[in-house]
């Protein structure tokens, strides 16, 4: 069942959802959002793409096998945990770097916590898509 309207609408929605998912991921530390929510939103983008244009297209758009994305994410999430060991801190202690910080502002905060959240994002997105694609192809 192919529908031009759904396809055209999906194209815009997908792009929006993906950008929005990254926005959610990045703002997560201070506002509602974070890796879980971002990952789910991103997954929804590809799910809509799959429904509108078929899983084959969605898989091509994704470029990587979703289960690989999930486990790569798991690896990325582990890195900051081990990174803390370099400083003699317990596992998963956040390490921060404030670029251009002044007395009033934090400047550009970079942290291992963000890396961890990116890992969470990838795991959630990859896992959901693994399931959805497999189910769609099954049906």
């Amino acid at each position, binding site marked *: 069942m192919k529908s031009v309207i759904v396809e055209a609408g999906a194209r815009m929605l997908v792009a929006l959802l993906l950008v929005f998912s990254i926005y959610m991921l990045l703002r997560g530390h201070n506002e*509602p959002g*974070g*890796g879980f929510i971002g990952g789910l939103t991103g997954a929804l983008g590809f799910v809509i793409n799959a429904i509108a244009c078929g899983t084959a297209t969605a898989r091509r758009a994704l470029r990587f096998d979703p289960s690989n994305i999930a486990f790569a994410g798991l690896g990325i999430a582990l890195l900051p*945990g081990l990174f803390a060991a370099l400083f003699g801190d317990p596992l*998963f202690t956040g390490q921060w770097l404030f670029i251009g910080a002044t007395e009033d502002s934090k400047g550009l905060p970079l942290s291992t*916590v963000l890396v961890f959240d990116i890992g969470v994002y990838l795991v959630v997105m990859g*896992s959901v898509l693994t399931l*959805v694609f497999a189910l769609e192809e099954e049906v």
Partner: protein
Amino acid sequence: MGAASGHDAKSGPGLLAYLPALGAAALFLALIPAVTPVASGEVLRWGVDWVPSLGVRFSAVLDGLSLTFGLLITGIGALVMLFAAKYLAGHIHAHRFGLYLFSFMLAMLGLVVSDNLLSLFVFWELTSITSYLLIGFGHADAKSRRSALQALLVTGMGGLALLAGFILIYTVVGSFDLEVVLASGALLKESPLYIPILVLVLAGAFTKSAQFPLHFWLPNAMAAPTPVSAYLHSATMVKAGVFLLARLHPALAGTDAWLWTLTLFGGVTAVFASVMALKQTDLKQALAYTTLMALGTLVLFLADGSSSYAITGFMAFLVTHSLYKAALFLVVGTVDHGTGSRDARVLGGLAKAMPVTAIAAALAGLSMAGLPPFVGFISKEVLYKGAAELPLETIVTAFALAANALMFAVAGIVAFKPFWGKPRGETPVSPHEGPWQMLLGPVILATLGLAFGLLPWIKQSILVSPGVDAVLGRPGEAEALRLWAGVNLALILSLITFALGFALYIAHTRLREALILWGDAAPSFDAGWDRFLDGLKALAAWQTRLLQSGRLVNYMAATFATLLVTLVLALALRGPALGIDFDTLGQLMVKEWAIAALILAGVLVVTVTDSRITAIAGLGVVGAGVALLFITYGAPDVAITQLLVEVLVVVLVALALLRLPHLKPEPEPRRKLDAVLALAIGGVVTLITLMVVSTPVDRRLSTWFEVTAWPEAYGRNIVNVILVDFRALDTFGEIAVVAIAALAALSLLRARRTGAQKEEAGQ
């Protein structure tokens, strides 16, 4: 089947094949510098913290006992690995075998030098696992797989018991440190937990050391290549149990329970195994049963808490047995390699073709038979003296006499007859001498047996006395090892042993036939094990049929019924103390009531509809309502997640829906039952929720997070800060579960698909 199959003996071993042997030799040399300080009574300790919060240290101790074991393990290990390099040369998995053997040696070494009960346990389990790999090395053979699994299960069960025993020791003593445990003997023996501790620890030791009636895995483990048998049955694996008993001797020995259990199990094992050894026609099997006999004897002599003669006998026999047993196993391996047969009824007159092997066999055999001037004679003398000192002297002496006489006979069968007896049949390969790599081990070990016999003080000062001190827990009590101790009871007993043993040897062919006849009629423990496993599987199948109907509806009913029972119990016990504050209900606004009504409407739709898509939509309404509630109460993160998950669930179910038939209503009585269950659960949960909100909430934790999130973790969104920073390890665990669940679901779906394809192909 050893040399006859699986590899081509002509191609020489590569350099890589010698690596394990070199490694073992290096470890042996590394232990040498410790000999002098340990012999002078020092105890060397070394360690680092492993899990400091649990008081677990990764620590090593070198005292008399662990050094003696360490030297045996690495020394015999090096010779056995050298043997194995040649024995398995050309086998496609030869390197794998070397790796297994070396890992096993490391595990064993770790076990004996462990200074902490928990690290000891870890190494204990590692020896079980590596020996599983070794016994099952010929994994293409069903028999060898079965033997490996049997050894793993038996010793694994013992390992679990041992862990429980160690934990009980910890609850009494308050430490896993060996030093503390060994010093707390009195505390342990007075504790009400002493008997459970004893039972559990002995279960571990007896399974590992193959004591009757759990002995059957050891002869079966002969399915392994000969070097494994030589190693597992001489210096290591099976001695691990004996080592544990000796190690914990200062802490646990000295009670009636210890005395009687060890005497009975050790004695019965020794005699039973000696009889079984006579019955065997395979040389390797005969040796396996004499190992059982030796283990029984060793256990027997640990039974007493304070006799210095018994413990000296224990240490002396331990070393003696390791030397001659490893040598004899390697000799049997060489014979197997040189003739293609291990059958005692066929082999004979090999001394001409295999002179070096024959001499090594003779030396080791004389030591095993306990003849002077070999070290076996001295050990036997000390054993008899020790037996006379034990409280149950008559029984122990009788056990020891019978076992030693039978051992004399078996030594003749294994080490004498194949080489010097008359040849009685054609061997598959015409006999030829083994290469140097295979001869070095038996020759060195057998010569040591003679050297230690002639110069007993060397063995005494390096290997025996320090060990005796460690087992007894006090220094300077080891009895002297002497070749000639004058005419005394022990010498007379020795002479009786020789006479009995010789008579048995002369009569052994007829005895063997009688025993085989009798053995076929007697119940077999091995078969009993099979019945036990079958019973276990039948039980599992029965309870699966009983509990697993395969219908989700039934599982959910069972889950919720269980939940209901526990909730009602909790309410009945604690409920009356908690009131419900109905005032809070009055504060609810129209908004909240509206959301509640929405949720209720969704639920109603789900329960009455017979269309799946309507049901899903209804559930979606319920989920959205809950998300709305989260938003009203200021938890946007949770609300967003909830909504997203709801959307995804609808998508997923919608996908599945295309394949599913219409909802078939359950039969009427079942529906009523479900309704009652659902209402009861809902009612009880509501009640509990009302009680919970009526009690003041402990806000310490939330306040702490609110206060510290910004200054310490630089985040304003507390939920996210908790997820990625304060509780990052938990989150990591959760996402790992998410990823694994997705992978599992994927493989289930794939399995279904390939199953369906196969069906199509079959039609």
